């Protein structure tokens, strides 16, 4: 219980190889935030409902609060910090969010960006209904979602228009 036992985690985090030893009970969300300093991933409920902690595990959106760090062993993890452009510039999805005023407090935003990044890879021309369904696993308490929907549709358009 006092953390004597530690297990190895070797993973690719945002394109970089990471090797650490962690307590077996360490959550992936805490590992990313507190051990690796990737604090862009936020923790809103720690029971898998709010979606703020969503990261991409081998490209698939997962709740990092519902995974243990050791479960990331041997996998690739992407967080919001990996979604930007060069030198801190915004990526296209982030830029669409900025233009549409798709965030207010910004706490839920990283989980929405990761969720939608995966969604847009598989849905080049989403309808509004599809976007809303894709967003329905992420809670936002500030925006009422409309501007988020607008941003995702705009990002999809700009991906198509290249």
């Amino acid at each position, binding site marked *: 219980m006092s953390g004597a036992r530690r297990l190895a985690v070797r993973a690719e985090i945002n394109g970089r190889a990471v090797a650490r030893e962690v307590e077996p009970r360490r959550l992936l969300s805490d590992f990313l935030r*507190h051990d690796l*300093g990737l604090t862009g991933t936020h923790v*809103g409920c720690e029971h898998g409902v*709010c979606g703020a902690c969503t990261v991409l595990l081998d490209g698939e959106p997962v709740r990092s609060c519902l995974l243990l760090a050791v479960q990331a062993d041997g996998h690739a993890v992407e967080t919001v910090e990996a979604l930007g452009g060069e030198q801190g510039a915004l990526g296209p999805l982030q830029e669409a969010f900025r233009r549409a005023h798709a*965030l207010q407090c910004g*706490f839920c935003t990283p989980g929405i960006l990761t969720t939608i990044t995966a969604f847009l890879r598989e849905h080049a021309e989403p309808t509004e209904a599809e976007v809303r369904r894709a967003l329905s696993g*992420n809670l936002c*308490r500030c925006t009422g979602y409309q501007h988020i929907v607008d941003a995702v549709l705009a990002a999809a358009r700009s991906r198509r228009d290249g």
Partner: protein
Amino acid sequence: MVAGAQGGVIGARLARNEDARLLTGRALFVDDLQLPGMLHAAFLRSPHAHARLGAIDAERARALPGVVAVFTADDLGAAWRPGPLLVPPPPVPGALFHERTQVPLARGKVRHLGEPIALVVAESRELAEDAVAEIRVDFAVLPAAADLEGALAPGAPRVHDDLDSNLAAHVVQGRGDVEAGRAAARLVVRRRFRYDRGAAAALEGRGVVAEWDARAERLTVWDTTQAPIPIRNGLAAWLGLSEDRLRVVAPFIGGGFGPKIMMFYPEEVVVPWAALRLGRPVKWVSDRAEDFVSTTQERLQIHDAELAVDGDGRILALADSFLHDTGAYDPYGLTVPLNSQANALGLYAIPAYRSELRAVFTNLPIVTPYRGAGRQHGTFVIERLLDLAARELGLDRAEIRRRNLLPKEAFPVAQGIVYQDFTELTYDSGDYAPILEQALERIGYRRFVEEEQPRARAAGRRRGIGIVTYVEGTGIGPFEGARVQVQGSGRVTVATGVGTQGQGHFTAFAQVAADALGVDAAEIDVTTGDTDRFHWGTGTFASRGAVVAGNAIHAAAGAVAERARALAAAALGVEAGEIELAGGAARVRGEPGRAIGLGELARRANPLRGAVASGSEPGLEATRYFGPERGATAAGAHAMIVEVDPETMAVAIEKYVVVHDCGRVINPLLVEGQVHGGVAQGIGNAYYEQLVYDASGQLLNGSFMDFLVPTALDVPPIEVGHLETPSPLNPLGVKGAGEAGAIPTGALFAQAVEDALGLPGFEILEIPLSPNRLFELVRAHRAARGEEGA
């Protein structure tokens, strides 16, 4: 630069300055702090709503490896004392108010679920939680006052043993002759209304990190608060530090909605105290389960109200008597029920009004304002009574509202009762008829009522429409301040004391300063919520940031502009009146070639050698304060079309329209965001956001699995129309907009669903109203009428 309606930067739909940090994960939230040597705290919280505290045995917890300290009330010494009363009772003759504020750690007994009893500080959060589980407490469980009406019954368990009853406050306000209105009425509608408890459920829980720097002899506290300056001042007094030795920072905050204003939370006192005591940084961040029982909540009130109208539906009198659940303590005074008293007057000419409020202590978590903050209840009462009166008189719902609206020439309207800012409630400005008419037009009211609804009915579909109006008291005092400085680089810094939780202050405030200084809003760096940057002010609440801080920034930036013009005039050899500020420079009007950059002026105003005139101040900088004489009253109307599934009672919103007048708009994009978010919370509140407590005060749905908040599938697109009636109470002419969206949704939902169901005599008198509850109500109604299918 994007221009506003009048071509200026005020009114422009600018994207936000703060977004880049938030979108890339670089923005600092309290839980992101990692300090060298930092310890982690966890609280032992009461598992009971009401219990006497016997012995607390923390020996096993203290003995666990990695545990640094365990503290209970007895360890706190002089730091153990009840918190401050943040809002005193209103100056209403005959008002009764019992002040009972929360304590840092419970002593003697616990009065609500989740009340903190002990603090464990350990090398990690996991170890701290392990140790909390090892603390043994002898509880003698007491019956709980968990029911609002029951808490006032004779013999009810008393939350505070030293009081004769659970009555926390009694205030009667009114004006005009209600009895005469009643006597002259063609119709008096009397009903009981209930609005239940919910949680604001900001996605970021509360958190505090405190660090004592022994060399600098300074304590720094990072706090998820909406009001860092009052926290700094109060905490300094509490801990016996000079205010100058304490810095409170509210960094990016993951949603506030009211409950993050409530100071002092026990954790806000105990965590800094522990950091001082232990000489190491201490972090505490709540988890979701803690948030559901330790963050303040709101909304439970029961109203017995009646409306007297003449044969044309004109209001003669309104009388209301209501119970307000204040929870176990009342640190925030009567702000919430005073808002309820005010909002029941709505947009209407009401000749006689009487409102009696009784606040009641219960063994439930503390109640403080949550977005809307009691305004919902007043609006629900008047809007529902108008609906019922219209039905009985055979009047159209829009028409009864139209007939009762305050006319444009009535403003300012002195309402004869005391508002939450302790001035007489006075509507400063407004033009209500266009609000109502535009909302009706946008929703297609006439067409729906005359054509679409009869067609839907004929096809067996339950479609309905609603139209309601509301006022929002905003922008109350006492004051805020701001410092505006032009840097040598030409960039401009603005510092103000209010905290920010997503409102867009870094952009809206930049627009205000940009307008005065002739610079691009993106060239302006705004700092909020850091007492080292600005240390006068109160905080972000009551939809007041844009009004009070906004006008302080307007004044400070105006003073800087005046100074820049004077300095430039001297440098360029012209009169100050010939200088205009544009494009980041001061230039001679009509001679764009003769100009000097603001950065250059700032450098010249801070000379390294030579002499300056006696009494002159350095730099291009000014600090100004703004305090409105009273709050500004915004108003609006919401309309929606719904369809109810008669089998499941699920309600689908087909269309939602908001027409809103918050005075002059600084940034319509941000106002739309505020309105959308408010409506989303209002929809959640109306549909299903209900904290369910059992008779012992246990919370039965304290997780996001069970306490549902709206998703992207539940909130429809919202169409927003802006009207602008400037406020005469401040130079910018602005009114607040933060809470408007959330205020009338319950009343709207009730009306539209009632209309959709079309059941004779069926009335919705309570909120929230899940499909399950709606199903029960309809079944009970049918049974009472002896109908089939009951």
